């Protein structure tokens, strides 16, 4: 009992600086943002009413949700395939998968966004190549639109989607898969009817993480969307630094934080934090 207690206290002590940092750097300033949303430019609920009627704000919200949903589906699907290889492949396959998962972490989000511009723009690698082999005559618009945003975000988020999936796949009892095959089920059927359903918690965790991350994306949509696919984080930035319409920017922030908070609560109902690493 004493051991448990002192362990907990030790853990609390070790976490204290982080908690302090989070409170000072995020929670405290955020309270200020909440205050603005109710007081600027005039006290009252005016900003929240504006949110409900402002067409631009609503279309950005809807676009953000749409992009986040597409990115989530694509990222989780791609991450699932990579994770299967990483967790269950041969040693050589594991090495390759691990490389693919870890390398993106060493390249900044900015560099990656510009990398995609270089690949996808009208005179980028892909269009040049497709034209040179005569597959297309006019360049495809692959960037400065939602497509480019989705590509860039998916690329960024796949590694984050991998970890909850890997944890679910690692905790799966091999004998259950053997049992399925022993009962006459082919490898394919076993994968779809046993393996995938048994990693459900990993899929949910992975999807929620990617979705929540997507909602807050700023740099990638700003660069790859070219101002035409403004997402919610960029809208907040524009309202506060360019309009300046602090009250409305603050109100959007508050709504976004509440929404993300609700999703996180949902996330932790399905997965323990430990499974996300």
């Amino acid at each position: 009992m004493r051991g448990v207690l002192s362990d907990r206290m030790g853990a609390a002590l070790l976490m204290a600086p982080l908690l302090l940092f989070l409170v000072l750097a995020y929670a405290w300033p955020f309270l200020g943002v909440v205050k603005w949303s109710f007081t600027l430019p005039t006290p009252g609920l005016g900003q929240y009413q504006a949110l409900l009627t402002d067409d631009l704000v609503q279309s950005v919200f809807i676009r953000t949700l749409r992009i986040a949903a597409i990115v989530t589906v694509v990222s989780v699907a791609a991450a699932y395939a990579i994770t299967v290889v990483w967790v269950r492949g041969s040693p050589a396959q594991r090495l390759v998968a691990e490389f693919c998962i870890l390398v993106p972490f060493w390249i900044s989000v900015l560099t990656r966004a510009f990398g995609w511009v270089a690949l996808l723009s009208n005179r980028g690698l892909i269009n040049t190549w497709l034209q040179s082999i005569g597959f297309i005559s006019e360049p495809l618009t692959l960037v400065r639109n939602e497509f480019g945003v989705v590509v860039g975000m998916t690329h960024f988020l796949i590694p984050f989607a991998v970890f909850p999936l890997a944890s679910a796949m690692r905790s799966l009892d091999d004998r259950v898969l053997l049992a399925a095959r022993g009962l006459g089920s082919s490898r394919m059927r076993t994968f779809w009817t046993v393996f995938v359903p048994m990693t459900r918690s990993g899929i949910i965790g992975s999807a929620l993480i990617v979705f929540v991350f997507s909602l807050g994306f700023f740099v990638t949509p700003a660069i790859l969307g070219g101002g035409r696919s403004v997402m919610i984080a960029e809208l907040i930035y524009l309202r506060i630094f360019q309009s300046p319409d602090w009250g409305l920017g603050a109100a959007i922030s508050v709504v976004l934080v509440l929404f993300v908070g609700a999703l996180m609560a949902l996330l932790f109902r399905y997965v323990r934090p430990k499974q996300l690493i």
Partner: protein
Amino acid sequence: MQQPGRAAEIKAIGIGKSFGSFRALDNLSLNIGRGEFLTLLGPSGSGKTTFLMILAGFVQPTEGKLFSDGTDITDRPAEQRAAGMVFQGYALFPHMSVEANIAFPLKVRKKSAADIKKRVGEMIERVGLVGHEKKLPSQLSGGQQQRVALARALVFEPGVLLLDEPFSALDKSLRGQMQAEMKRLHQETGTTFVFVTHDQSEALALSSRVAIFNHGKLLQVGAPDEVYDRPDNRFVAEFLGEINMLPLKGVKPADNGSTGLCEDRAVNMHCKAEKVRGDAILAIRPEHMSIAREAAVGENGIAATATASTYLGAATKLDLTTRQGAKVTVSVPNEVAAAALSKGNSVWLTWPAEKGFLLPDGGQ
């Protein structure tokens, strides 16, 4: 293993399995008869699970061949062999209800919905799970999970059912109950059962034949009374239960079996002195020895002094030391034990000639 509803006959010839340089199974040949209940018995790490996995098709043997009803199935993948298998720890599908777990092998075989419903219903009744159809495995007790695993493995009428220590996680009374139930299922289905355990009493109680493994080798196969009463070697003798070993000298064939000198007294055995000559070991189970005041002329006997006793309820286990220092344990009625101990001096241990058997001297 291919025709449903018909017990399979399995023949393993020279099966070997190496994991790197480690020899998990060595030159194992074994015939498993149609509809028989064969138990694989051996200590931990002796290769029982490995052999079962080879039978199921989950592990590929390094050498040897496997035949089912005369067909070579050595290279046939597990899903095409479709042996029913109950794993250590059950391996139920945690995301499927009891019903769906049992229906799984039938769905895979594309049976009609009506047929599946009928057969699953029958199976659920047969293993006593009525009322639990919609539950998930995590909502069941260990014994109930065990029943689901049995039902799932039997519902598609496999030619052979492979069971890997199915009862190791159950408490003693439930274990006895499940053993009886499994015996009943064996009789009802008539399927060939191959059962793994490292509990010798379970093996002796359930099987038509027992195969004893040690260090990846098959040491002996035979009916329970055969391996218990006439073990081929010391390991089998000791593994199947407590046994007394007395050194014998001058062993030679005799009219009615064999004879030798045990602590300077002539003793007779019904077994033949085939493999042993000269010095050997005489092995006798504790329950086959009795205490007497005197051994008659021509009766097998040895003088000993009682040193300690353990009360077991129905009987008493008595420890004795012979004149030449051999340790012997017998299981005798309580009052006999008390009398032997109170006298404090020498008693005689006697045994019938058919209950003593010869083992080679030293080693295995």
